């Protein structure tokens, strides 16, 4: 399957051309944001950066300060389902075009992807070094008061690989695999 190259910020037409199963290679800016960031945005705090057309990466990286420079030591995805109560709103309010994480998300996010034009992209969970290898620079950080894993890190990536598992057409690989595996395991029940 061909790999689709994406450069952030991304426009709506490009996002709507993606489908479940597509492999994407992302270059440009990624902003990390996980539990505490989503909770704070939900409480009405304005984001410290313009998220329009951008991608939020569900990730709590290992960061070490070397001199006055932050260096990313490991940066794989964290489980996305915890952001399910908030993600749809963050997509709607701030014009995010993509979410990267692992494990997929639910109906609210899937509906928001269809309505506002966004996709969910699955990085390989646990593969923190492969992900970190495509992070070329750490350009900044916001909301460090949340603690390093929960802060908004501004990452500059080249050819960050992920697989589209929820698209803007209402399709979710996670829903398909869950339903099929539930049926198969029911048939195998002791």
């Amino acid at each position: 399957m061909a790999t689709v190259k994406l450069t952030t910020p991304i426009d709506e037409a490009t996002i709507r051309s993606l489908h479940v199963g597509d492999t994407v290679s992302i270059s440009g800016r990624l902003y990390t944001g996980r539990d505490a960031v989503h909770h704070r945005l939900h409480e009405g705090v304005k984001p410290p950066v313009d998220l329009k057309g951008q991608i939020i990466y569900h990730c709590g990286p290992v960061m070490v300060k070397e001199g006055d420079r932050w260096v990313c030591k490991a940066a794989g995805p964290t489980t996305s389902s915890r952001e399910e109560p908030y993600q749809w709103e963050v997509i709607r309010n701030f014009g995010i075009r993509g979410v990267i994480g692992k494990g997929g998300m639910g109906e609210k996010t899937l509906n928001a992807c269809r309505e506002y034009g966004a996709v969910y992209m699955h990085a390989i969970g646990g593969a923190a070094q492969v992900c970190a290898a495509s992070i070329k620079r750490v350009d900044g950080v916001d909301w460090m008061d949340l603690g390093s894993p929960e802060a908004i890190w501004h990452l500059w990536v080249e050819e960050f690989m992920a697989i589209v598992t929820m698209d803007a057409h209402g399709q979710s690989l996670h829903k398909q695999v869950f339903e099929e595996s539930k049926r198969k395991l029911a048939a195998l029940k002791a």
Partner: protein
Amino acid sequence: MTASAPIRDISAQPALFQTILELIRRTSTQLPDDVVRAVTAARKEEAEGSNADVALNVIGCNIGLARENSLPLCQDTGTILFYVHTPVGYDQIEFEEIATQAVREATKVGYLRQNSVDSITGKNTGDNTGPGSPVFHFMQWRKPHVEVKLMLKGGGCENMNAQYSLPHPDLGGRDLKGVENAILDAVLQAQGQGCGPGILGVCIGGDRATGYSYAKEQLLRTMDDTNDDPLLADLESRVVDKANQSGIGPMGFGGRTTLLACKIGKQNRLPASFFVSVAYMCWAYRRRGVTVDMAGNAGEWLY
């Protein structure tokens, strides 16, 4: 263990400090050989070019990169679980203090992420210490040396642990069938969330706390060992076989490898209780060990 306890100067035990620091480094950055073999074998099962194949290929690259560059396999360096056997009369308090200092140092240099957060205020202590972190399980034995095993269990997989109380209306009664159905339900629910292919540690029986604890201890076994109890050995292979027919696959992308192994132990229970506790471990199955002499020097590296 509390963070406010006075911490002994590491100069009291410089060799032990270095040994524990090296144990943390190896555990965070080098996947044990038995796990690497299982992950490598799994890739052969998947259709070439499938999403499952892509996932296992990336996992393989990641294992190599982490080892080569001495960096964490996964950014979630997890709950820090020490399992320590000590000779009778060994100073366990001092061990705990020195090991805690090694955890602080490992966090500073980036073998471990800042992973200990106040449960109410959300404040990160920044050095992986605090109430309940790191975790120490001490056991005495009559051997003349110390043995330290370390497991780093990430939050993604820890969140997918599950505990069932049998009988259960959908899963069955207090027998091996009920147990098997409960374990496979945990596999169904964990899909995608705990990074698959996974490894299960299971405890049948115990109370709610000891059940989970013993389930986790099953993960100290090696991937290719055989359970001494033939009934449990049989159940272990049946669970793996059925899980791998579910089609969940690596990362929940669909595919043939859902579980790499299942390790089951049992504890006696009360007549009124029947718990099945399932500890889900991700493919980044970080557990290592080392024997330590009385001067704190590393002896044999385990796994």
